[in-house]
């Protein structure tokens, strides 16, 4: 049995209670050594199990971060999408760790994540190798290879962050021909299989992926999101994609296929009829004519309808990340009025 210990002597026994799971997993396993023998046969599995007890990450903090990322994206004219893992997902296996395979943890959130650089590499290879997009376009969107003079790409790839606390699981790989993989011997029957446990993200965990245009790249963002969706679905992200790891399904396609159409609230009906009257889409009404929308909303007489419409409007602003961080003064004014009414009721 391994006991968690920090590198320094402490007065109290450290425990992971709502803390940073990444810190715990990396630094409190006090058996760092030159090889991977120090944890022993059961030790690796046991250490992995210390982070499986509950979902990792702080729900409030993740929600806040997500709102902030959405607000950054909508202020910069970018796009975002939610994806859900349909297979185990693992990244950062190459990092050193006593368990033999490391794990990429987000520094402040203490959750697994996929760095922007990995997202970019994935989409670039999907576009150039699978989609055979022509070289000029690749250079424009992803930038030139470092060897050459180096133009900068037109799209920014943000880190993909989990939407809720993340469920992890222990997986096992069992290489049969270790000396062969190490390049020492040809593969042969007398090599023994060696089971190695490692940590992975379970199926069904949601992540937020986002891109931002850099200097005139707004059209290209849409194109990139299509590639991203295909790449995550077919090619997979992170490690061990050749054996089926790292596949994600877009949440949009999923809701379109499996959920019945949403029941419409009175507020939603009011919004739709107003949009029709003004000959605009609900989307434009909410995002472009917020002052007019607010004035029309003020005119509603029934209290129940007014509240229902308010909730609908709030939901639409929230999905864009505008509710907490309105980008313009005018919108801020409108939202403050909504919030005021909400508090009164």
């Amino acid at each position: 049995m391994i006991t968690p210990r920090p590198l320094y002597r402490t007065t109290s026994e450290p425990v992971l209670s709502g803390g940073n799971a990444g810190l715990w997993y990396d630094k409190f396993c006090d058996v760092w050594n030159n090889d991977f023998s120090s944890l022993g046969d059961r030790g690796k599995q046991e250490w992995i199990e210390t982070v499986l007890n509950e979902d990792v990450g702080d729900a409030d903090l993740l929600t806040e971060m997500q709102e902030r990322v959405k607000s950054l994206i909508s202020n910069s004219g970018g796009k975002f999408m939610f994806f859900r893992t349909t297979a185990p997902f693992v990244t950062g296996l190459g990092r050193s760790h006593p368990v033999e395979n490391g794990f990429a943890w987000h520094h402040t959130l203490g959750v697994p994540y996929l760095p922007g650089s990995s997202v970019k590499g994935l989409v670039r290879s999907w576009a150039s190798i699978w989609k055979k997009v022509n070289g000029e376009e690749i250079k424009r969107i992803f930038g030139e290879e470092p060897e050459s003079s180096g133009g900068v790409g037109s799209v920014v790839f943000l880190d993909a962050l989990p939407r809720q606390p993340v469920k992890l699981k222990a997986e096992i790989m069992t290489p049969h021909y270790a000396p062969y993989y190490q390049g020492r011997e040809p593969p042969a029957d007398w090599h023994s299989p060696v089971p190695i446990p490692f940590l992975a993200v379970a199926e069904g965990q949601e992540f937020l992926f986002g891109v931002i245009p850099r200097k005139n790249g707004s059209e290209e963002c849409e194109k990139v999101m299509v590639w991203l969706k295909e790449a995550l679905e077919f090619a997979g992200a992170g490690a061990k994609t050749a054996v089926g790891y790292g596949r994600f399904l877009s949440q949009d396609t999923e809701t379109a296929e499996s959920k019945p159409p949403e029941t419409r609230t009175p507020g939603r009906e009011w919004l739709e009829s107003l949009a029709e009257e003004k000959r605009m889409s609900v989307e434009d009404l909410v995002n472009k004519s917020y002052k007019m929308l607010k004035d029309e909303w003020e005119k509603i007489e029934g209290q129940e309808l007014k509240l229902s419409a308010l909730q609908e409007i709030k939901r639409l602003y929230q999905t864009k990340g505008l509710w907490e961080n309105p980008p313009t003064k005018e919108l801020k004014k409108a939202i403050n009025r909504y919030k005021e009414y909400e508090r009164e009721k």
Partner: protein
Amino acid sequence: MKGMMLGMLAETNIHSGAGRSEGFVDLPVAREAVTGYPVIAGSSLKGALRDTARESGLDESICKSIFGTEDRAGDILVSDARLLLLPVRSLTGPYKWITCPHILERLSRDLKLCGLSDGFEVVSVKKGEAIWSGDHLFLEEREFRRVDGMDEKLKPVRAALEKMILHQKTASRLDKQLVIISDDDFQWFASYGLPVAARNRLDENKKSKNLWYEESLAPDTLMYAMVFERRDGALERLKSMFQDNPYLQLGGNETVGMGWFAVKILEKGEGR
């Protein structure tokens, strides 16, 4: 001379690099020579401001007058962006925001310089101790003892810091996440407590072509910079730039999502 302060909250990782390496990390972040705290050079910040100005559609001639040309100095002075709060991983909550008396004293002086406040009293704290609202504390692998009865003294510090953060919700977390430790302890975290990522390029067969280690400032790092004007109106122009879009990108690795700050402007006579 009129001045204002920019409260800069990191929304993503920030890599404002030193461009050279002396140790294990291939690409460390830039640090102040004397204190060893991570810093963003005034020249980098000014460049980023200029770029943002150009992108926001500001007229090129106005841009030139604000930021200067080769033969004419610009109308604004830009300081380095200094470190204020460093997010450090913890076993009680995902991370804590740490700072130290030296940084707070510097902030107090800079607030006075910008005419934003009369400064505040800076607390002192011993090595191995921490001033904060909870009890037991692990930062990275180190343990800290809580100093009792300091709640009153934390208040003015918290009030000053709250104003630097753009998002209300984020600022409200200061109550339970702010930690003041001694200058020496802080320096250790500023040197060794930053995220280091391993990066590489893969070829078509997914073999790694190269591998490098890169240090960055974590999201939720809080920094601040001062801007002064040499001619009336320059600050107004700069301010209006951030009114519609409060975000500023600076430093390296832009296209892999790094370098985004949410900027909050603090001015004299305005209580926000």
